[in-house]
């Protein structure tokens, strides 16, 4: 009995080794394909188009608005959550299926000062609060989060935009933002 079990396990091991030798480039690809199934099979095929930041008349400087936009594009690319990350106005967007649109609206903005931070430590922080929404092409909201980005101690005011974009990307990465099922 024990000998047959041993033979069986040897057979299995040999078969696995043979498969590994016969298809050396197949196994890594299989593990890659298996990863999206864990996170949701449609997530890998979803692309995102990042819209420019809506300043909501809060006096956010254009340099900050564009810095948030550019940092968001960078950070979303880093997450590898989306098949493609497109910019606002990109004409290719109309051809891409399963496209989500990322809308960012400034909710609260406290302009800070690097000098005040350096002198007082406790005041002069630059604070940004935004509402990030992932919306489908037909207007359905897939994800709605309020995210903060601050600079409290060290760094320039513009660093708040980088921190904010990082936090938004983190929030999107954590959430299961798959497309809603289409009625057939």
């Amino acid at each position, binding site marked *: 009995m024990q000998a047959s079990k041993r033979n069986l396990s040897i057979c299995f091991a040999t078969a696995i080794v043979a498969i590994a030798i016969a298809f050396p480039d197949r196994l890594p690809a299989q593990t890659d394909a298996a990863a999206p199934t864990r996170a949701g099979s449609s997530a890998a095929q979803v692309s995102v188009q990042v819209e420019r930041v809506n300043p909501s008349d809060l006096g956010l400087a254009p340099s900050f608005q564009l*810095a948030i936009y*550019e940092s968001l594009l960078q950070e979303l690319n880093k997450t590898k959550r989306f098949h493609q990350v497109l*910019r606002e*106005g990109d004409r290719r967007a109309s051809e891409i299926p399963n496209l989500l649109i990322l809308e960012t609206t400034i*909710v609260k903005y406290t*302009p800070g000062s690097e*000098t005040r931070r350096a002198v007082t430590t406790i005041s002069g922080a630059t604070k940004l609060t935004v509402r990030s929404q992932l919306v489908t092409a037909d207007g359905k909201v897939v994800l709605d989060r309020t995210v903060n980005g601050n600079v409290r101690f060290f760094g*320039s005011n513009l660093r708040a935009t980088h921190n904010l974009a990082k936090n938004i990307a983190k929030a999107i990465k954590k959430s299961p933002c798959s497309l809603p099922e289409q009625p057939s």
Partner: protein
Amino acid sequence: MNGFCVTASPRRDHFSGRGLIRAWALLFCCCTYALAQSATHPVNANVPFSVPVTHLLGLENTKNNCNGTLSIQDSALLFQQRGKPGAKIEIASVRDVFVGGESKQVGGLPMKLGKAAAPYGGGRVVSLFAHKKYDTLTVEYADGDGGIHGIVFQLKKGEGERVWQELVGRGVSAVVLEKQPTKATVEVTHASK
């Protein structure tokens, strides 16, 4: 006395004749200088314009916070790092240009460490004076597919306006150019729900 009369009379002649001409010439020069100061000098499109800048973010294949030269050559805006290939943007693709102002602490990390090590809060006093105002130049442009890009440059104070003027002078008038006030940010908290 005689000598005085002899010397005095030609002086009087000098003031009434040549002196008057000199006075007029001086007045003319002053007026010309004043006009030159107030009027914006015309931009010669053939002369290449360049200014040292720090690229804060936005340019593809270029590191953030790197120094280089921003120049306007023919119909393109060119950012060039020393010994590296430059990044080029066609002026025709530029949609908006914004000039803003910020202030930052100077000295970098060594200064920061020095200030932290200074006893009795001496570092804070240093921070009070060790800051520098600078201009930010934000350029918004569209790529070949229509995708919007944004680039932020840091320039010496006053240089932002110069670049802006150069862009206007080189026929960017068709493009909407907005100038943001260069005043430092105001401590106001806005909130809307």
